[in-house]
Structures are given as C-alpha cells and as structure tokens.
C-alpha cells in the first residue's frame, strides 16, 4: 500500500506515433478533434483502488484535476475539489475494449448499417474503419454504463487484411473525428482462418484454404516492402516515385512500426505461423484477437511480446473455436504474456468486468490464483499497451488521463455496477442520473433514451 501522498507536479506526455498518412497535427484531414467534456477537480475518497499497474490500495483517495490523475493515496487534501464519498466503492482505470465493431456494425443491425467488412477483395488495407463509424450507435452509451472509456473499432474479419482500425474515447460526438483518441496510433486488422477462406473460397476466388490465406498475407507484404523501398529510393533522388497507394501506405506503416497489427486468429498453430510471417517481413503483431487457443502457445506469445485478446468463454460457434476454455486468459497471464479480455460484442462490452470474473473463478478452480489487482489489467492497462496508448491511459499513475470508473462494489461481482465514469476527469456517466448521461439521436423517445440502458 502506498502510504506517501504523491502529488503530481508536472507530467510529460508521451505522444505515441501515429500512422503513415496521418499526422498528429489537428489540421490534418481525419485527425482527432476530440475535446474533453468540461470538468472540475474531483476527489474520490476512501475507496478500494485497483491502479491497473498491479497494485491495490485500500481506503485510499484519488484526485482528478485538469483531466489528469493528480494524486492518489490515503488522506488527500480536499481543498478546491468536489468531494465524492467513495467508501465501500471500488475505483479502477476506465475499461478499454480492444475489439469492438460499435459504429461500424451499429444497432439496429439492419443491412443498411452493415459497414464493417469491405468484403470485395481479400486485401483492403486502403479502407479505414473510422470512415464507417456512426457515432449515434446506442451501443456507445450502453458501453459507457459498463465503464468503457476507450475502445478500438475494427473492420470485420472477412478479409485477410481488412483495413485500419481506429481508437476512440467513448464520448459520442457529431462525427468520428470528435471521438478519436488523441495521439493513438492506428491499428491494422488482419484475419486468419475460416472467415476469409469461407468468404472468398465460397465465391471461387482465392483464398479458399489456410495455405491460400498465408500466400495472401505474404504477397501483400512483398508488395509493401517493394513500395517502401521505391519510396525510400525516390527520397534519395533515385528512380521515379511510384503512384501513391492508400493500401500500401497503410502496410508500410506497419513495416515502419507506426501502425499496430491486430490479428483475428483462433488456433494456436495458425497464430504460430502468423508470428513467423511477422518475422519474415520484420513487423510486430501487437495482439491476436479471439485467440481461443492462446493457452496452447502462451510461451510463444510471451517471447514475441504479443498480447492475446480473448473472450472468457465463447467457444464452439465454429470449428476454430472448438478448443475454447474458460482459463485461457489466466494461462496466458501465468506464462508472463499479455492477457486481454475483449468483447467483439455490443452486449459483452458492457460487462468486461464480469467476463474477467468468470475467468478468475475458473482459474481458481484450476489452482491458478488471479487476485483483482492483477485481473483488472486484462481490461485496462493490457489493452492500452496493445493499442499503444499505455503512456496516456489504462492505469491510475500520476499524470495519466483521468479515465476512471467508480464501481458500487467489487467490479468482479455480478451485482456490481459502474456508478460514475470519468473520461479525462469529466463526469461522462452517472448511474441513474439522466441529467448527466448521453442519449444518442437514434434512441430519443425510446426506453434506452429514457434511461433504460442504465
């Protein structure tokens, strides 16, 4: 337990790199125009705090000021802050979902809303999920009620390379630029296994097999490396510049380490092959998503410093998900690799804490002890790490963005609800307080709009 009050005096912001074709410059097209909601200094007192760094503080206070975690520890001064009695409450970093399709497959799920898969070619690195995001998806608000403060919105998995993802703050805006997480790098969605081969093989087009999938990835990387080399040569005054390619810009962003690979992949053997492809072309896989068999290759994931973003218990809905076990994340964590619980689901994203709890219980049953302060990392700091935003959010260290959830009890109990959710120090949600909570345009006049989403 931290006994000394740490007060932030200054903090340095590490702006993570952004992708090729982007710019962290607010004037650039499609750049983040996110602005934090208005906030006042807030002191939450007497809570059990899980910091996201693996620590647990009992009967501790946390001061949110100027949008940052300003101080944390016991007995902080209340001067100048709105004081919230958090005795009996638990405080954690904001929940981060590394895998959602909110906005690109919004509710209602009509055909006209199906904007998540550009399934017209197996490699569509040129598309950007953000250009499909509908900010009025009611799922953003219900996710907020579940404590979600940031998320990665991905293209679907129909394609080998499906396009760029976007990381957003969960503050519904008028457009996606209003929501984009400032300074977050782009991700690239890749997909293994059944989905691409079924999607294209079913039309008599490559790929129709897993070996066809691998040929597809490798061909794309060969093309990207060639484009990168030609661009570099041109900069040195050698040769003619190739025509700019949106698709290859993105792939080169990966090869340059500026765009992070998020790879939908279920089976252990396939993930192993994907790690070798990454070696062949010298890029890094930030995270495997779904990774139902991550527990079979936990050591390889640890070695590659690649996260496994998994469900608690989804299994059997297709062949590559047949070997799912509840202990998956715990076995990954035990091996020293980075475990993440993700949702890929508009209901699941509302309860990532519950999904985590199911794994904790299953792990305990198997003799693997995962205390709350360790488990919380699976839905806060570990997803932040995989998204390249861990210097800004995901933990309650001094100077971090004040993305914070106050729960009305232990977040790993089924009976617990998020009571207050702060994003950049601003109260973005308060359970039962309609005056605070957002209502999307779509749900005006419905039960959800009337607070039914709670």
């Amino acid at each position, binding site marked *: 337990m931290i006994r000394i009050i740490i007060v932030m005096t200054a903090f340095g912001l590490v702006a993570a790199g952004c992708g090729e074709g982007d710019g962290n410059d607010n004037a650039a097209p499609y750049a983040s125009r996110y602005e934090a909601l208005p906030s006042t200094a807030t002191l939450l007192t007497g809570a059990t705090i899980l910091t996201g760094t693996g620590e647990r503080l009992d009967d501790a206070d946390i001061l949110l000021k100027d949008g940052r975690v300003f101080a944390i520890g016991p007995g902080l001064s209340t001067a100048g802050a709105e004081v919230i009695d958090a005795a009996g409450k638990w405080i954690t970093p904001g929940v981060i979902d590394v895998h959602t399709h909110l906005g690109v497959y919004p509710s209602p799920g009509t055909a006209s809303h199906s904007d998540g898969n550009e399934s017209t070619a197996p490699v569509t690195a040129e598309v950007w999920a953000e250009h499909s995001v509908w900010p009025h998806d009611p799922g953003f608000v219900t996710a907020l009620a579940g404590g979600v403060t940031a998320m990665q919105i991905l293209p679907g998995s129909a394609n080998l390379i499906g396009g760029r993802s976007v990381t957003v703050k969960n503050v519904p805006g008028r457009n996606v630029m209003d929501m984009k997480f400032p300074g977050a790098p782009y991700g690239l969605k890749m997909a293994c296994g059944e989905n691409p081969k079924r999607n294209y093989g079913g039309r008599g087009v490559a790929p129709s097999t897993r070996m066809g999938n691998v040929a597809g990835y490798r061909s794309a990387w060969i093309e990207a490396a060639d484009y990168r080399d030609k661009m570099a040569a041109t900069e040195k005054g050698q040769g003619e510049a190739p025509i700019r390619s949106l698709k290859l810009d993105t792939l080169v962003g990966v090869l340059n380490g500026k765009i992070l690979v998020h790879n939908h992949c279920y089976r252990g053997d396939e993930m192993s092959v994907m790690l070798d492809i990454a070696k062949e072309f010298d890029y890094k896989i930030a995270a495997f998503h779904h990774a139902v068999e991550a527990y079979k290759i936990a050591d390889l994931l640890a070695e590659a410093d690649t996260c496994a973003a998994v469900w608690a*218990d989804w299994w059997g809905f297709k062949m590559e998900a047949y070997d799912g076990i509840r202990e998956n994340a715990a076995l990954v964590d035990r091996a020293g690799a980075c475990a993440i619980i993700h949702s890929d689901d508009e209901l699941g994203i509302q309860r990532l804490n519950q999904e985590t709890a199911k794994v904790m219980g299953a792990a305990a049953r198997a003799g693997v002890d995962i205390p709350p302060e360790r488990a919380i990392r699976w839905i806060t700091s570990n997803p932040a790490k995989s998204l390249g935003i861990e210097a800004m959010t995901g933990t309650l260290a001094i100077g971090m963005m004040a993305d914070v959830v106050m729960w009305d009890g232990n977040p790993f109990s089924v009976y617990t609800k998020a009571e207050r959710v702060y994003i950049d120090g601003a109260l973005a949600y308060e359970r039962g307080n309609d005056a605070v909570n957002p209502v999307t345009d779509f749900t005006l006049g419905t039960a959800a709009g009337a607070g039914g989403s709670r």
Partner: protein
Amino acid sequence: MNRLVTAFALLALALTATADTTAVIGGKVHTVGPQGTIDNATIIIVDGKFFAIGTGIDVPDGATTIDASGKIVTPGLFSPVGRLGLIEVSSSAGPDDSAQRGTQFTAGFDVADAYNRRSTLVVINRIEGVTRAAITPAPGRVDNLGNVGHVLSGLAAIVNLGDSDALDLRGAAMVVSLGENGSRYAGGSRTGAWLVLRNALDEALDYRDHEVDFERGMRRDYRHSVADLEALQEVISGNIPILADIERASDIEALIDLSDAYRLKAIINGGSEAWMLADRIAAANIAVILAPTHNLPFSFDALNARLGAATILIEAGVTVALSADVSNPSHNARNITQSAGNAVADGLDWDAALRAITLTPAEIYGVADTLGSIEAGKAADLVVWPADPLELTTYPEAVLINGEQISMVSRQTLLRDRYLQSDSSRPPAYRD
C-alpha cells in the same frame, strides 16, 4: 409431525435394502419449493428421486454421503431454450440437427429424435450445473443454396443431461417464429408469418373435425402434411404451448389476441418489448423467456429493449424464465447463472432469479410436477456450490442428475489440464 412422517418413511426405506440411497448433508439448501431455504439441511435421495429434505433427518445406513457443510445447494439448473445435444459446432462444421431446411415438414419436425446426450455441449454445460434443458428447433435459414426456413419450426423436447434415459418429454412446445424473424420465412412481411400460423391452426382444426373424411379422400387437401397436422393437435387442444420467437410490443398484442381466439397456451421467447405490456401478458397467462442483458435495439422490433425487464414482468405477475446470453445460448447455456445475477443487479429478488432458472422453466413446459425444485418425489437434480451460485467466480463442486453424481470432467477440463502442465519436454499430444 413432519419429523414423525419422515421417521416412518425412513423406516420404510430401511426395509428396502436394495434401494440406491444418497444423502447430501449440511448444506444451506434453496429448495425453490414449499420448504423454502433450509440451513444445515439433510437431503435424502432414493432411486433417483428426492425422498426427504429437512433438518434432524438421520442418514440411512449404507447411503452414499455428500458433505455439503458450509456450501449452498440448489436444484439443478434448467436451460429454457437452445440446441444442447442437437449441434456440435454452429457454423460450417459438424452436425446441426436443430432445423428442417427442406420443405417436407414443419410442425411435425421433432428434435427429440436427434438429442445426443454424449455431445460435448451437454458435458461442458452440466458440470456447471445445467441438469435439464428444453431443446428447441431452429427455423432454418433462407439462403441461395436452396435452404428454406419455417414459421413453424417444430416440436421442442425436454431432456436431462445425465448418463441415461435422456429424454424426459417429447413434444413439449411448438416453436414458431413471428415478427421480423418470422417474416423472413414468410415472404418478407410479418403479415405472412401470422397467416402461415393461422392457416396451420385452421387446417389442424379442420383435420381434427374431418379426419375420417380426409382419410377417405372426401376432404380438400391441406397445405400441411398429416405429420404436421397431427403434431398441431396438441397445440389446438391447449395441451402444449406455442413457443413464439417474438420481440415487438405490437406483435405481442397480436399473439395475445391469437392465443385468445384459438385458446392456445403461449410462451414468448425474446420479448424485448414485453415489459411494456406486463399487465396484459400477466392477465393472458403467457410466460416469457428472456435474456436479461439484452438491452439494445438490435432491430426495429426491439427499439425499447432495456435492462430490468425481468423485474418489471415478474412484479406484474408474469411467469419469467431467464435464458443465457443471446449470442451463445446453447454452447454457453451454463451462463444462465450470469443472466440471473444480472437480473438481480437490475432489481430482481435473488430467490425469484434462482427460480427463473430452475422451477419456472419446468412450469412453463408443464414438467414441474417432477422437475425444477428440491421436493420429495421429484427427480433428484441438485448442485452443490461453494458460494453464491449467481456469482461469476462460483463453480459447482458436485452435480447430481436423477440422483447420480456426474463426473466433473469435460473436454474443456481435459484441455485445460493438459496445458496447465509445465512439462514441455514432450509435445502436448504425448501428455495426459
């Protein structure tokens, strides 16, 4: 007096030397029956049935004893919908016996014939406490491969997840898809779905009244096969309910009217907007099966989906059973405890939530005389939990189905144990 009766009963039992007897002792027992909750209770099970439940009961000599001291004991969980034992892998692999994709039969399609008690789904779900399930046919699907779907998808069955005599009840309900879902199988409009259903009921009534003429060829042909019309007889007689996949309030109103007109028993499955009509549904004596976390407008039929719907309905007197998360109700039927816990978080009384995943599903399907609670004479399904069964971190320690303690090993625990081993000197396939 109860104790006296019990003493006589035990005396009788002692004389039956061949009886297979099990005693579960010391637990806090939530009977979900008239005996309520009993601390430090003894449960005596004889030949697969509950024989006596209470305190101060002597354990007969020779009984197999399960020590539940400090634990919680509940009835076995009852999954109210899903395809347990009818499928292995949902998409593009393995058997899926839940749907009739051809055109031969609709109402007569009976999933009981396909139930596989050795399915991996059955084993994986039972070790987490699911002991009984309604297995329900799916409507099929409309696609460009020649598959079709049906407004009437056929007959549900009640099964147990034990090691023998798996089928409890054939023809437990007639499953129908209405609303937006049903419209897909009826030409694109929900009107078509209602028409298909009414036509089937009318033909079943006509067949009932003119069967002899029909056999003699003196009655018009029917759109439905004789097998379908035979299956519908139990529906029009009010013996079995229709289980209607339906979400929108206006469709629920139409269902109430139709049930009234044809004197049908009905169950709503889904019911996103049912809470808006709680009093009418209660008055019509229509039960509702819902997933309590289903709070988004997935379609225009569910614009008013919300949390807390189960609480509103139950408080209005509606019979409500809770199903697992809509995304995976079969493979993860085991998550009905999570559903129940979430219903409690949204205001439902804890005992009512436990009832909604045990006794209430049995009532809905008309099998509560033998299933669903810990009462003398009922099938001895029970679960021993180390803590609150609705909590996410709680897993069963023992599960009994028809009085038999099941193995707690599943394909998933085997996989887990293989990869828990730290011995990496041999490939996994050479490990246990």
